[in-house]
Every structure is written in C-alpha cells, then in structure tokens.
C-alpha cells in the first residue's frame, strides 16, 4: 500500500468522525445548544438589564458591555467541555467507540474528531448569544482579538473535554469537572466584576484563574479594555490548549481507560 494512500484514508476517517460529532450536536440542538444560550441570556437579563440601572459602569464601560465578553467565554468553555466529555463518555459506556478504535485513525485524529464537535457546539452557542446581545452593545473594538480569544477558548476546553471523556468511568465523574471545576472557574474569572476592584486575596485569586486571561482578552476584543497584556494572555492560553491536546493524544495512544 502506498503511504500517501493511507494518509488520504485517514483524512477521510477524520472528516467522517468530525462530521458524525457535528451531526450529533446539530440533531440534539435542544440539548446541546439551547441550554447554553438560555443560561447566557438569563445572565444578561438579570445582571445586564435588571441590575444595570443600579450599577452604571465598571472600568468606564456600561455593565452589559463589560459583562458580555465574559459571558461569551463562559458559553464557549462550558459547551466545549460538555460536548466532547459527554460524547466520548457515551461512546465508551455504550461500547460503540470500538468502531473508531478499530479504525486506522491516528490518536491525534481521534482527538481532533471529537474536539471538532465541541468547537462547533461552542461557537454556534456563543454566536447565538452574541447575536442576541448585539442590539444592546456598542460594537466590537478589535474583532480579530475577540475571535482569536474565543477560538482559543474553544480549542483549550474542547481538549479538556476529550480528556474528561476518556478519564470518566461513571456519569458522576463526567459531570464533576463541568460542575465543580469549569463553572466555578468561569464565575471567578472576572466575568461580573473587575479584578482591580477586589481586595486581597481575592484579586490575586482571580488573577490565578486561567480563565481570567481568556475573559480579559475577549473583553479587549469587544471593548478595547484589558487588564493583562493581550498577546501574553492569548499565547499562554494557546500553550495550555496545545498541552491539553497533546495529553489527550497521549492518553488515546496509550489506550488509557479506552482499552483493557
């Protein structure tokens, strides 16, 4: 067999796995898209509309404009983690992952295929929230920065979702990371407040939250306002994403919790 033929076949396999994951996201849209959009819109309604009249500005921005970028990051990361972890956990627990594991796909392609569904779910959900909020905001200051930050957020947390899906042996373990890690990290990442306005040790703790830098970079993209150097935030986040993707590939290659 020609080596080039194998690569073509593997690429077709990757496209098929990614298509299958995206199809799952779109066909189950009431479970995969709607909850993230509704949650974000509720946050916008309660904190943006209801409380905005009492709290006019943060860092020179109206509260809704300050909060929206963080909500978009929250939407992206929660959707990205939930998708890959749930899909992989289901495939494992119901056994149909064997169809993929017996295929000639490389480990990196299996991870990329599952991550593809995650990023599509994350970006579709995020785009819908952004569209819904658009009439109430003042436009995007640096579109490229906003897109880069959300793309990196999707990539980082899709990779994390794959790891969670591989590691989870029970439904509780699968839900643990989403409920007790991602949600608190998102809420403590300066979405609703400015880190500079906090007293110690809360300011330092907020700055230790890795999601804070993605929220800050996204806020720069939307409003032009930032606390931390944007390029450093994006570079460090991308590095974390690459490390998590690499870890997921290594786990699949080893067959950890996938093969006895």
């Amino acid at each position, binding site marked *: 067999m020609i080596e080039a033929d194998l690569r073509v076949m593997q690429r077709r396999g990757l496209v*098929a796995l990614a298509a299958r994951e995206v199809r799952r996201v779109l066909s189950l849209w009431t479970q995969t898209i709607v909850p993230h959009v509704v949650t974000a819109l509720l946050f916008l309604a309660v904190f943006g509309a209801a409380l905005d009249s009492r709290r006019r500005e943060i860092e020179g921005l109206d509260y809704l404009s300050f909060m929206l970028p963080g909500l978009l990051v929250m939407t992206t990361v929660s959707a990205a983690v939930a998708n890959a972890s749930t899909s992989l956990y289901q495939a494992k627990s119901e056994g149909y992952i064997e169809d993929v594991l017996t295929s000639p796909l490389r480990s990196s392609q299996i991870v990329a295929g599952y991550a593809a569904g995650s990023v599509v779910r994350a970006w579709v959900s995020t785009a819908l929230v952004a569209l819904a909020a658009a009439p109430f905001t003042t436009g995007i200051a640096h579109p490229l920065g906003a897109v880069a930050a959300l793309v990196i957020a999707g990539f980082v947390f899709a990779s994390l979702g794959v790891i969670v899906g591989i590691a989870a042996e029970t439904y509780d373990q699968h839900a643990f990371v989403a409920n007790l890690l991602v949600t608190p990290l998102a809420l403590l990442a300066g979405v609703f407040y400015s880190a500079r306005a906090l007293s110690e040790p809360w300011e330092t703790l907020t700055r230790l939250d890795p999601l804070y830098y993605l929220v800050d970079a996204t806020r720069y993209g939307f409003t032009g306002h930032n606390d931390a150097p944007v390029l450093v935030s994006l570079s460090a986040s991308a590095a974390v994403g690459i490390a998590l993707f690499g870890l997921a590939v290594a786990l699949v290659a080893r067959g950890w919790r996938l093969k006895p």
Partner: protein
Amino acid sequence: MIDTAPRDLDRESAALVVDGLSKTYADGTQALDALELRIPAGCFFGLLGPNGAGKTTLIGAVAGLVRAAPRRVFVFGRDAVTDPRSRLLVGLAPQEVRLDRFLNARDVLVYHGRYFGMGRLEARRRADELLDVFDLAAKQNTRSNRLSGGMRRRLLIARALMHEPRLVVLDEPTAGVDTEQRHELWRYLRRLHTEGLTVLLTTHYIEEAESLCERVAFISRGRIAAEGVSAELLSRFGGERLEDAYLEVLRT
C-alpha cells in the same frame, strides 16, 4: 512514497500470526499465556473454547481493542499494534452488539466505511449492497437501537464486511439469530470464503464449526491446546464428532 516498511515474508503469507502473545489484565487475570497461532490466508478457521478461555481477548488484540505488546500479532505480515494499515485488513463483528444509537442502520455502515478511508459515494454504494445482502434494506432508516436483536446482529456483521477486509473476525456471530437466519448467514459466509476471504470464527455451536471451518483450534486457559483439521483432531483425541475431541481436550 512507496511503502518500504520491513515485512516478514513468512508472516505475510499467513492471514494471522500470533507469536507468544501474553495478556494480563489490571486485576491480575491472565487471559493469554504465550499464545501461538497461525491462520493460513484464505482459511475458514474456527476457534473453540469455554467462556474465559481467552477468545475475546485474542480477537481484541487482533482488532486493536485490547492493549498488546508490539511484534506479537501480525495480520498479513503487518504488526497489529503499531501499523495502522493492519486495521484496514481486519473486519470485526464483536460478540456484544454495540452500535451507535444516534445513527440509523445505513449510516452505521456508511460512517464505518468512511472511518476506514472509503469515499462518501463508495461507502454509500457498499452500504446499500450489504443492506440488501443482509435483508436490512427495509430498515435502513431505522435507528440501530430500534432494530430487533437478530437485525442488530446482522448489521454488526455487515459492518465488519463494509470496508472489504481480507480477514474477518466473527465473535459468536450467530448468537441470538434464529435458525433460518443462521443458515442464511452460513451460506453468505461460505460464499465470501470462496471469494478468498479469510474467516476467523469463534462459536459455542460445535456443529457450526464442523459445518463451516476448514481448520479448528481449541483454546483453553489462554493457550491453544490443539489445532488442526477436524479429522486430525478426531484421530488425536478420539471420538466420532468434533464435540468429543473438544470435551477431551478440555478435560486434559
């Protein structure tokens, strides 16, 4: 680039070579104990053994579902652990029917074909052909979890054949299939075999092995206890039927 990976010609002449494969699970269970096996290309080969003898572990190692040491399992000369091209040569119908419940019967086959490198149109054409052969065309749009047990079993076998492998591994393929369907399946497997396909069949039905298989191996406690054509096994272990030889091997 032309494939220049080194290959062992003796191993390549066989469909499957297992060379001293051992497997101990994390809980300490030794499933395979330096197992040796050689299945000639084009052979219809039966693997018989009691529950827990190591059949499914061996099949898992061949298909990439069980972690195994490299350079112990070779499919047409290719290392089943390290060479992804070996996966293209194997079609597996596992013992347990585990199908993607989000997909209908046709898509189960089409996606499988595409995971194995088939183009979209090619995969659809092949899926339609197999749906006809396995009498599933009327159920092609039914989700896999809504098919009857027998239909799911047939779909699993169709899936194993989807990417046109040279070695098809059938782990208890007729379990839960009614008599008429079983004989229909036998006819189809015989036809595939006459077309050159190598078949590795595990079964609890000794008459199935007698009827279909050219060579048979008895596996016991993770090792091949005996292997040969039925006549050889009968003369070696006594008895009038393969079942007698099988029971004699298990007793010893």
